[in-house]
């Protein structure tokens, strides 16, 4: 007697949604058990979590603004990663590229305190994109030239970037213009007003420009992949690089170009985040480089899927953080734990939605 997996064919989208909901329900029950054991009312906790504390909040506009501050980087990063994943280039260096983008753009922010706000934002964005893009380009170059393993290379850049930003954040020295001068202890300096993300005021709600740009970027990437010759090249290279070569495509050029775009977009997310949070910090990435990988795969690299998935995961993350902040007996680590359980259940649900486990039957109709 044994079991084996059979891939389901023709599953409907609502069936997948049903599996996802079931997965989330299971994880919430598990979370409720944990919460009850910590003597917290699970219903109240979940209410806070799913409404992100909006109900009964005196400053709902602020909450929504903050939500977008964490949604924008995750969406852009997931889109950028999907671009390279589509080409079967395993860029797992989102973290590092994000830090490089944030750090280099903050140089502009800190060094040009009197510049026009729109000009400085443009300069910050270009700087972040170029430096991060060059990192990606270098890794792609090593890959095309010496066939190095891009997974290892991008991973190692993550650590280099992480420790560089920690080193800068911990080292009080004359050269270190990243830190506040008026503080004895090392502390990252805040940007001047001109380097903070401009916004449109809608009845007290501040709609940051980065949100508008992100929507445009998502649409642009979708269009790029679906309708342009370059997008077509990416799908062919990803599907079979032999075929791409055979069709006369310059595969190396396509890999270099796409990886530059992918890394530059993550650098852009870093620059946006630095600007909208008015400064950098060692944990500025909020793990988007990792979460972005999950989002990209959960959406099967579909661009509309990524928009939906990153939106939902941002709500989950943000809500978890808000909810755990209102209970003294737990901290943000509990929020991370709950997030992990939910994501794991969703991935399991995704698996069960696509495969069925079949038990072998034996018959004796001889």
């Amino acid at each position, binding site marked *: 007697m*044994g079991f084996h997996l059979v891939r389901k064919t023709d599953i409907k989208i609502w069936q997948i949604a049903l599996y996802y909901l079931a997965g989330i329900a299971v994880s919430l029950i598990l979370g409720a058990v944990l919460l009850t054991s910590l003597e917290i009312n699970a219903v109240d906790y979940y209410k806070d979590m799913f409404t992100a504390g909006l109900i009964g909040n005196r400053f709902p506009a602020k909450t929504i603004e903050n939500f977008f501050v964490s949604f924008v980087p995750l969406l852009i990063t997931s889109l950028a990663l999907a671009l390279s994943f589509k080409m079967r280039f395993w860029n797992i260096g989102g973290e590092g590229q994000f830090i490089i983008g944030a750090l280099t753009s903050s140089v502009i922010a800190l060094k040009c305190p009197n510049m026009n706000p729109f000009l400085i934002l443009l300069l910050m964005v270009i700087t972040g994109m170029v430096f991060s893009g060059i990192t990606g380009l270098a890794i792609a170059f090593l890959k095309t030239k010496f066939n190095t393993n891009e997974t290892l290379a991008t991973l190692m850049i993550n650590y280099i970037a992480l420790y560089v930003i920690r080193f800068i954040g911990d080292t009080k020295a004359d050269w270190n213009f990243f830190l506040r001068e008026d503080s004895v202890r090392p502390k990252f300096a805040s940007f001047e007003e001109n380097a903070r993300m401009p916004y449109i005021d809608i009845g007290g709600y501040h709609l940051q420009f980065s949100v508008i740009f992100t929507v445009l970027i998502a649409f642009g990437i979708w269009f790029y992949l679906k309708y342009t010759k370059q997008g077509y090249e990416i799908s062919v290279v990803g599907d079979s690089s032999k075929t791409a070569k055979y*069709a006369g495509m310059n595969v190396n050029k396509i890999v270099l170009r796409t990886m530059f775009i992918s890394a530059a977009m993550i650098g852009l997310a870093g620059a946006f985040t630095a600007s909208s949070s008015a400064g950098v910090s060692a944990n500025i990435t909020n793990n988007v480089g990792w979460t972005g990988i999950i989002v990209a795969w959960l959406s099967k690299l579909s661009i509309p899927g990524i928009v939906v998935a990153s939106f939902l995961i941002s709500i989950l993350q943000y809500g978890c953080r808000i909810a755990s902040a209102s209970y003294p007996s737990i901290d943000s680590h509990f929020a991370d734990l709950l997030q992990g359980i939910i994501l794991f259940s969703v991935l399991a649900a995704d698996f069960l939605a696509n495969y069925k486990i079949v038990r072998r*039957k*034996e*018959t004796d*109709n001889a």
Partner: protein
Amino acid sequence: MDGSEFAIELKNISKSFGSVAANKNINLTLKKGEILALLGENGSGKTTLMNMLSGIYKPDTGSVFVDGKKVVISSPEDSVKLGIGMVHQHFKLVNVFTAADNILIGKTGEGDKSFFLKKDRYDKVDAIIKNFGFELDSRKLVSNMSVSEKQTLEIVKVLYYGAKTIILDEPTAVLTVQETTKLFDVLRKMKEKGHSIIIITHKLNEVMDISDRVAILRKGEYIDTVNTSETSEKQLTELMVGRKIDLAIDRPKMEKTKPVLEIRGLSVKSDEGNLALEDVSFYLRGGEILGVAGIAGSGQKELCEALAGLRKIEAGRVLHKGEDIAGATPKQILEKGVTMSFVPEDRLGMGLAPSLSITDNVILKKYKEGKGILVDRKTGAKDAAKIIKELEIVTPSADTAVRKLSGGNVQKVLLGREIAIDPNVIVTAYPVRGLDINSSYAVYNILNEQKKKGVGILFVGEDLDVMLALCDKIMVLCHGKLMGVVHAHKTTKEELGLMMTGALNTVHRGGKTAGVAKDSAIVEDEIIYTDTEAAK
């Protein structure tokens, strides 16, 4: 041993993958000491059925009897214990091990429990080799073995494990005529010693030659088992295909044109850096099909890639209508009207992007045409619709991913695209690889249609019978060297087989140099000399 007349009985075996039924209620018997041929078109479920005997798949329903006793085979180990051994189409050997060590790594359980490898392992293996009259050195490394030696090793391996029933999955696909004869001798000897053998094949002449009985599957269903002595190739084909079919391949006679492609002294390196083609010369005229025969890995792939501009040419000249195209980019070569379609072993690797739609595959070679940054899918969809209609491709729509199509339709998409660009030279390698009879004949017709239009076709093939019937001339490669170019209607399978193994070289036969056209566009002192020699 004496439990039953049958070594193996399958009763009502069914197996499906997803919603596709690969086997439906199959009943099959294998008598002790007989050779049973399992015949069926591609996708008829032969390999699936045998994989259930060797424990790779498990049947959804039905029962298996070995020696009259009902058994459950749930793993390859179970299968070995029951005395069933399978020789797969793709060998499962460790390259850096000797023959004997390859046999011993799979040997578990009873017997040698010692921690150390003992010297006498070679003797044990040698004993079996001698007993059955194989030709194999137990100390030879697999990496130094020819395809036929590797196959012999696989057979010795299953015998060493004590197999009484041996299943061979298309064993002759990789062998030359001579090697096949040798294999069949060994199989007959094994039969004499009481072994039962199932041989999967779709080559009818081999079925007639070696088997005692033939079991036929069609579309996953069991059709019949007939005695070989009481049947004919024609009857077997009808049983296999389900209707009458004309087995003759057309070879239209065409007016010959000047050479469209002339290759002189071509040398190309393989991926490993050694010479895959060495000083090869041949020419191709418009309106002819030139076959390329050779054992797998004799430089066919490198030849195709060099002609398409995908592989660097180390030495030699490639003339297209008198113009040197050696060193041109794939795109430039394509623009000259030379198309190459190569069907690799996995059938999808080169030339097609399997996850993309038919339309996206059809536009592959001209997606860059047209101004602007956008891909012109409108024209692509029209082209795709035309190819689907003309080549009768079975598909739900032009938006279906190519990997969801059946093998024959996949290959039609590939060929259809190549033909759609109105080529004057078609280089095609293994276009019928893995196709069933119907689809194969459809492909031959497509090629003949192109030939009638005056296109020169280089046909790299595997099946000598087909090449003898379809091609006008056949050139033979052995280890990257040209062994000769012969007229298909004047040569025999045996002669081709000898050339393929390098035992016969006909390049300079009859005072002529094979592969050099009389009306060549290449003027070289040495060549002219040879031609005058021939004229004398």
